[in-house]
């Protein structure tokens, strides 16, 4: 059945509402003027030029990208075994573990950021790479666990049993059978963790220092002090990265399906 005209109008309205700010920001990012005004007085690439020639912002972009990759890897390394245990094994405290892993999602990030600062400061880990990786991983792991648990649960149990009867130890069966079949879930989880870390602002605000900062934090600070369209260009850069990751996942998981699942 084709959706009715009313539903389509409603959907169009929704999309317009959601995307119009992006359109405005995109337009401003190409502004030739000196201020955040819409419509822009003229179009140019000057703010993109300025963005790419700003040492501070480029350093922050690099930091954020590296941090997000490391966090995604850490979250998968921690999340995958934990998810496997939750999905497959029966042990006392399983529900408690699942709850514990989801707990950071329930805390306001402001509280989490403050708590992390208080915990990491005495360890001299504030404003360091390990500190940021740890903090971002805390927020990313629940996402990784949630997605991977679903992915593992979706793998039929008898595949693993078949692997056992063929002589695979439980570990080898998990690595050779369950994990490859759940791989699209892992790709999706990794991408989401990358984005969670890449966009994370509040916790980072507590933990960055003069020598180590992330892109969202720098953007926030920039917007606080300046009113030029550079921040719009920066916002477009963030959107572009997120879009690239989503497309990459689509490509990878689609590719995987074509190779392995059909």
């Amino acid at each position: 059945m084709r959706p009715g005209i009313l539903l389509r109008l409603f959907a169009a309205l929704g999309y317009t509402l959601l995307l119009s700010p992006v359109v405005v920001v995109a337009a401003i990012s190409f502004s030739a003027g000196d201020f955040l005004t819409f419509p822009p007085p003229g179009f140019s690439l000057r703010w993109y030029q300025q963005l790419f020639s700003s040492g501070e912002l480029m350093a922050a972009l690099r930091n954020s990208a590296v941090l997000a990759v490391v966090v995604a890897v850490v979250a998968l390394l921690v999340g995958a075994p934990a998810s496997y245990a939750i999905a497959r094994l029966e042990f006392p405290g399983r529900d408690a573990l699942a709850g514990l892993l989801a707990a950071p999602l329930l805390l306001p990030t402001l509280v989490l950021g403050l708590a992390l600062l208080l915990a990491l400061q005495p360890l001299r880990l504030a404003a360091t790479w390990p500190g940021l990786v740890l903090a971002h991983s805390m927020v990313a792991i629940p996402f990784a666990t949630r997605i991977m648990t679903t992915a593992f649960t979706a793998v039929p149990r008898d595949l693993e049993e078949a692997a056992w009867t063929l002589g695979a130890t439980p570990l080898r069966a998990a690595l050779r059978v369950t994990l490859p079949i759940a791989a699209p879930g892992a790709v999706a989880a990794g991408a989401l963790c990358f984005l969670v870390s890449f966009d994370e602002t509040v916790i980072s605000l507590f933990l960055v220092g003069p020598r180590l900062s992330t892109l969202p934090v720098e953007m926030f600070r920039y917007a606080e002090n300046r009113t030029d369209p550079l921040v719009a260009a920066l916002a477009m850069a963030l959107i572009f990265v997120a879009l690239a990751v989503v497309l990459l996942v689509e490509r990878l998981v689609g590719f995987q399906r074509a190779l392995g699942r059909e």
Partner: protein
Amino acid sequence: MTHLVLDRLTRRFPGAAQAAVAGISLELPKGALLALLGPSGCGKTTTLRMIAGLEKPDEGRVLVAGRDVTALPPHRRNMGVVFQSYALFPHMSAAGNVAFGLEMRGVARAERAERVRQALALVGLEELAARRPRQLSGGQQQRVALARALAIQPDLLLLDEPLSALDAKLREGVRDEIRALQQRVGATTVFVTHDQTEALAMADLVAVMNQGRVEQLASPEEVFERPATRFVATFVGRAARLSGQVEAPGTIRCGEALLRAAETPATGAVEIFIRPHHVRPVAAAENLLPARVLRRTYTGEVVSLECETPAGRLLAELPGGVPEARATAGDTLSLGFAAADLRVFPA
């Protein structure tokens, strides 16, 4: 030579009132095919899973070739299992699936390739070695699963309802193929099924199971012709069921008629089972009853007659060619059957 021994094997699932498998003991000679036959929930699959090590028994032992394997995990049992769903690895080719068990055993690459080829040739699928499970038909997937289970040269071949996912048309052919293959390879096999025809056609031994127990363990002929319990008599094959009263050992009063049976309880109320093919239109027999035809069903090779007799309702199955097979509803016949063909159980 006894190859598989189940010794008082028992499994109780937590929270269940009744044991899923309640102390099963049986022995299976090397190279034989045992069918575990029973309705769903009778414990046959649980028994198979305990043999494979996928389920831990609460009591009892599993012995293979004299060795107690009860405590071994499945990966150390060397048993080839064909799952009801086939459980083929979707991310591997047919050859990859068959190679998996050999790889786990550390078989060198060259020998592995040769044994994979042999195993696939055994089931006639050499040409499809590179296909993924999704690119294979149900019957082909089933044969890959069989090749995968046989490639490891298992001590036991375990089949869990291997035909249930196939089209009815395919089933008979695959059934005969599996049986032929099993005999050629000489694999001692346990086969779970709820289909009596499958069990009778394939097995050397049939264990009829009900509520976690083996009701009868015997050859297919024995199970069919001489069911040991009321359950076996009702579950396997069709039978007319009459109720009666033992007048004297060997004589039962059944309605207005007296029937002679080879074996009866000494006294009391009984239930009598008579297989339709044991009932014949004859002039003389140990038991002879006048019968009025109530309904006639023509199925080509046989004609089924449902008849009213002084002993109760009888079913007679006659070959299509005999004159009595032309009887129609309302006709009266003389039906007879041997005393040895009656199965009598206390009611």
